[in-house]
């Protein structure tokens, strides 16, 4: 099983009305691998991420997570749409971190973290709380259990959001520009948490503009533009010696 990739996209296409955002994406993320996705805004990076946990439906191609088709079941060569409940169960195995954190403002930090384990997986409350405390320690926020999201800085909120996703013990973590909404001095603390997570062997797909992070932590770097993967490879190679004119043009602006 370990040679099936965690994420496999073959010719994935996604349209919004007449506007085609993904125009045949091919990529593979192996188990324990960290893939960073860069590219100009509107290139389809975030849409790709949202397709992987079926927040968006793809229009063509195949998208698999851990060998299983996303959003469909294949029986006798025919695709059957999955019931909402099955989709939800599959999403529970994939963690997602958003640009704007999207913490639940009416719940405490602790409430945010234990909500899904308790309500979705049926984990007993005291067990979920213990797990939440250790996760908060892991992201450097011990003692903030009773704070409300609005009492925290952006960097702290994003770290809580990471802890919230990890509480579901996901096999794959998706990061959608996790540091883009942060003040520059708060970016580092979030990247540090992500770096530790990568070291622990988590499979991660990270849409980011942080080239330093991509170079040091990423196993693969993908450059997307206008809905296609323009270039992919080892981060150092792509950054140091880009093969495509479009990659070169983009890198010259962000480096």
């Amino acid at each position: 099983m370990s040679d099936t990739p965690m994420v496999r996209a073959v010719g994935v296409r996604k349209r919004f009305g007449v506007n085609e955002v993904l125009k045949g994406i091919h990529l593979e993320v192996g188990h324990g691998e960290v893939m960073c996705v860069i590219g100009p805004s509107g290139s389809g990076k975030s849409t790709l991420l949202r397709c992987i946990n079926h927040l968006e439906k793809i229009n063509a191609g195949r998208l698999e997570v851990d060998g299983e088709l996303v959003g469909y079941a294949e029986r006798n060569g025919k695709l059957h749409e999955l019931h909402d409940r099955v989709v939800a169960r599959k999403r529970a195995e994939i963690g997602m971190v958003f640009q704007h954190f999207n913490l639940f403002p009416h719940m405490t930090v602790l409430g945010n973290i234990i909500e899904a384990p308790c309500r979705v997986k049926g984990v007993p409350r005291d067990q979920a709380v213990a797990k939440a405390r250790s996760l908060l320690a892991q992201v450097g926020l011990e003692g903030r259990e009773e704070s409300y999201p609005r009492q925290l800085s952006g960097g702290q909120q994003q770290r809580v959001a990471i802890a919230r996703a990890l509480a579901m013990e996901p096999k794959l973590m998706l990061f959608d520009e996790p540091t883009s909404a942060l003040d520059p001095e708060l970016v580092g603390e979030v990247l540090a948490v992500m770096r530790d997570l990568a070291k622990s062997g988590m499979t991660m797909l990270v849409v980011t503009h942080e080239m330093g992070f991509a170079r040091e932590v990423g196993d693969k770097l993908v450059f997307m533009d206008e809905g296609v993967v323009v270039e992919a490879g080892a981060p150092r190679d792509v950054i140091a010696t880009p093969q495509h004119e479009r990659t070169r043009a983009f890198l010259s602006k962000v480096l």
Partner: protein
Amino acid sequence: MSSEEVAAGAEIKAVPIRHPGRWIAAAVIAVLAAMLVHSFVTNDNFGWSYFSQYGFTAPILHGVAITLELTAAAMAIGIAGGVVLAIMRLSPNPMLSSVSWVYVWLFRGTPVLVQILLWYNLSYLYPHLSLGIPFGPTFVTADTNDVISALTAGILALGLNEAAYMAEIVRAGILSVDAGQSEAAAALGMTRGLVMRRIVLPQSMRVIIPPTGNETISMLKTSALVSTIAVAELLQQTQGIINRTYATVPLLLMASLWYLAMTSILTVGQYYLERHYRRGSGFSGPDQTLPGRLWHAIRYIRPGNEQAALLSTGSEHQR
């Protein structure tokens, strides 16, 4: 201000703007108020004696109780129905969504007085109500008039009508919650129902509560309409006394005072509810009416807290 004072960080003591318009308005209103009070005292047609004679008699107190009961029951049906209708309306199921739309169209599009009369006269359309298998055998049958008393008809009519309005209020509340919230919850593996119950509805309360307070106050007064189907609520009871005493205007004024007293209590309750749900969500401007300012000052002027009271009423320069 001298430059030394500026350097020393002295507080600004500016000459305040004068507001002659406010004084003129105060004078005009004082004269009008005096005329009104004078007429209250000297005009015997107000019949103040009826107030004390009938204001707290058993029939009136009973009427007050029925009015409160009507309001509470109708609002309970309205709120529960409104939440269900709003969730149906926003459901991806086209049948549920359409049914909700038709309901709101029907109940909001016809006069509530007509609806009250129709529910009261339901037995004309359906003399018997029965429980059984559609187009098959029935198990229980009852006379419509036994099942639906005048009070029940009133509660049903007011409640089902209110549900249509509450549906729109709840829908607006649900739509006011950032889409990122449902998305984050869905990404955690929560089902649609769970997302609605645990994440979206609690956050929509901030938007839903204030207009619901309004609706409750409005319902308290609208409930007077069921006097048309002889429910013994406040107005009906008052009319009963009017029929005996012919003191129409004094007794209607007395009933109005009762309504005013009840809505005043609800208004105070609404103030606290709104303040509670507005917490942490930006602007909450001070009430500029005189009672509002007075109330605020009374609440906040305590030893050591004068500054806060003055700052928040914003009235320190107007004395």
